[in-house]
C-alpha cells in the first residue's frame, strides 16, 4: 500500500492553475523529497494533502484513507510541519506538546512518556519548560518536528523544513529526520538539493503545477549517469572554454570558479586520454583531474530544461 497516493489532483485560483492533474504515489517508509523551483506548486499540493486547502478536483489518500477537505477524521494518520511553524507563544514547549497529544486523544500517562521521548529526540528537554515566545527559529523547528511526531504518525509531511534555518539549525533538523528513517514515511518539500542527496530515497519533481518526474534517487542518478569530468586548475580557466567547446567529446561545460565540469559525449575519450592531452596543451596548471557523476542539482536543472 502506498503511504500517499495522489490522483489527478488540480487546484485553480480563478484562471490560474497552481496544480494541474498531478498524480504520484509515495512508497511506505521511504524519505521522499518533493522538489520544484519556487512557485512550482509544492506548498499548494501539501496544503491540499493536509486539508488546509480544498482541491478543485482529484483524490488524495494517506495510508489508504481518502482525505476530504473539512473532515478531520483522517488527521491522525499524519503529522505536519510547516516551513515556519507558529505556536502559541504563551505556552511552554511541554504544554504545546501536551496540547498536541491531547488533540490526538493520547491518555495522560502515554502523553507524558511520549513528550519526554520527543523532547529528548529534539534536544529540548530543558527548554521544554520555557515559554515558546523565547525560542529561536531552530528551537521552534525542532519543537515543530516533536509536535508532528506526537502520535507516531504513519506519514510525516514537512514543507521546507530547513529553508528558514541557519547552517547549524539545518544540520540539527536533518540529523533528527535521519534518525526517523525507516520508522515512518517522510514526505518533505525542499529546494535545498544537497539535502535531498543526503537524506532522500526517492524524489517527486514538479514544475508549473505539473509532474516532471517521480523516481528513486539511485535510479534517477543512473539514468542521468553520463560521466562528468571534473578538472580543477590553479588559475581561472575562462580562456580555454571557447577552444574546449569545439572538442567533439565535450557535450556540455560548466564552470565553477577554477573548476570545470565537462559532460562527456563519448566514454572512449577517457580511454584514449583525449581530455588529458587537450588540457596538457593548455598551459594552465592542473590541480585535480577525475571522473564524477552528476549531482542532484545537475539532474534538477536538466529535468527542468526538459532534457
Amino acid at each position: 500500500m502506498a503511504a500517499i497516493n495522489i490522483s489527478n489532483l488540480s487546484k485553480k485560483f480563478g484562471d490560474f492553475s497552481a496544480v494541474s492533474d498531478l498524480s504520484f504515489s509515495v512508497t511506505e517508509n521511504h524519505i521522499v523529497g518533493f522538489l520544484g523551483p519556487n512557485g512550482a506548486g509544492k506548498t499548494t499540493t501539501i496544503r491540499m494533502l493536509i486539508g488546509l486547502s480544498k482541491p478543485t478536483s482529484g483524490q488524495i489518500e494517506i495510508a489508504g484513507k481518502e482525505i476530504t477537505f473539512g473532515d478531520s477524521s483522517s488527521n491522525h494518520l499524519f503529522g505536519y510541519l510547516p516551513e515556519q511553524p507558529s505556536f502559541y507563544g504563551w505556552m511552554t514547549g511541554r504544554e504545546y506538546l501536551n496540547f498536541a497529544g491531547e488533540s490526538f486523544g493520547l491518555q495522560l500517562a502515554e502523553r507524558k512518556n511520549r513528550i519526554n521521548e520527543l523532547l529528548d529526540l529534539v534536544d529540548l528537554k530543558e527548554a521544554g519548560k520555557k515559554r515558546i515566545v523565547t525560542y529561536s527559529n531552530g528551537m521552534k523547528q525542532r519543537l515543530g518536528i516533536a509536535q508532528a511526531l506526537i502520535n507516531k504518525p504513519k506519514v510525516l509531511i514537512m514543507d521546507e523544513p530547513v529553508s528558514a534555518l541557519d547552517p547549524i539549525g539545518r544540520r540539527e533538523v536533518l540529523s533528527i529526520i535521519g534518525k526517523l528513517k525507516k520508522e515512518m514515511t517522510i514526505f518533505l518539500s525542499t529546494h535545498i538539493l544537497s539535502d535531498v542527496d543526503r537524506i532522500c530515497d526517492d524524489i517527486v519533481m514538479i514544475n508549473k503545477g505539473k509532474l516532471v518526474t517521480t523516481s528513486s534517487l539511485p535510479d534517477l542518478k543512473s539514468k542521468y549517469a553520463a560521466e562528468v569530468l571534473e578538472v580543477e586548475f590553479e588559475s581561472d580557466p575562462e580562456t580555454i572554454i571557447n577552444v574546449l567547446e569545439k572538442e567533439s567529446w565535450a557535450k556540455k561545460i560548466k564552470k565553477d570558479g577554477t573548476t570545470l565540469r565537462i559532460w562527456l559525449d563519448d566514454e572512449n575519450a577517457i580511454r584514449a586520454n583525449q581530455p588529458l592531452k587537450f588540457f596538457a596543451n593548455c598551459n594552465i596548471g592542473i590541480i585535480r583531474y577525475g571522473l564524477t557523476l552528476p549531482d542532484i542539482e545537475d539532474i534538477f536543472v536538466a529535468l527542468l530544461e526538459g532534457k
Partner: protein
Amino acid sequence: MNGLVTMFKKEILEIIRSKKLLILIILFGFISISSPIIAKLIPVLLKSLPETPGLVINLPTPTWKDAIDQLAKNLGQIGMVVIIFVFAGSIADEKVKRTLEMVLPKPIKRSAFILSKYFASIVAVKVIFILSMVVFYFYTFSLLGSFSILHFIWLSLFLLIYLILILSLSLFFSTISSSQIAAVGFTFLTEVVFAMIIVYFKKLAKYSPDYVLSHYQELMANGNVSDFLPGALIAILIILIFVGLSVQFFNRQEVER
C-alpha cells in the same frame, strides 16, 4: 466532539495568559465600583464648583437609580467597546499569526475549534460579569440605599444577554474576516443597526437587542419582565444564528497562506 474539550481548555488558558481575563476584570471591576461612586459624588463635585452669578444648580439627592443609570451607560458603551476589541481578534489572529495551520491538521473538528472559542469567551465574560454585578449591588446598597434584588437580577440577565450578543457578533466577524480590524469594524456596524432600530422604528424597539439599554429604569421600577423578553429572545436567536453561521463558514473556509 473531536477536540472540543482540548480546545476549550486551551482557550481558557489563553484567556488567562494573554491578559484578556485581566482586562475583563479591570473593566467590569471599574464599572461595578465606579458606577455607584460616581452617582454618589456627582452632586458633591458640582457643588464644589465656583459659584456663577445667576446660575443656581439644584440637584436632587442621588439614589440607586443614578447608579443604575451609570451602570447601563457604562456597560452599553465602555463594556461593548472593550468586549469587541478583546474578542474580535480571537479567530482572525489565529489566521494572521498562522497558529491555525498548526491546529487544523490535527484531529480537531473545525466546528470544535469555533465552538470552543464561543464557549470559553462566554464563560469568561459570564463569570466576571456576575461577580461584578454582585459587587455593584453591594456597593450601591451601602452607598445609596436598598432596591429590588429580583428586578436587578432580571436587569443583569438582560444586560448579560446583550453582552453575549456583542461577543457572538465579534467572534462571527472574526471567523469571516482575515484581520481583527475588519472584525471590529463589522461588529460596530451591526451594533449601529440595532441601535438605529430603536431610534427610527419605535414600534419595533421592543424587538431590538438594545432595548434594555434605553428602558432599564422601567424594568427596575415595575419589574415588567415581559416587555423585555422579545428583545432578549431576539438576541438569543441572533446569537444562535451567528454561532451556526460561524461554524458553517469556517467548515468551508480554506486557510490562506
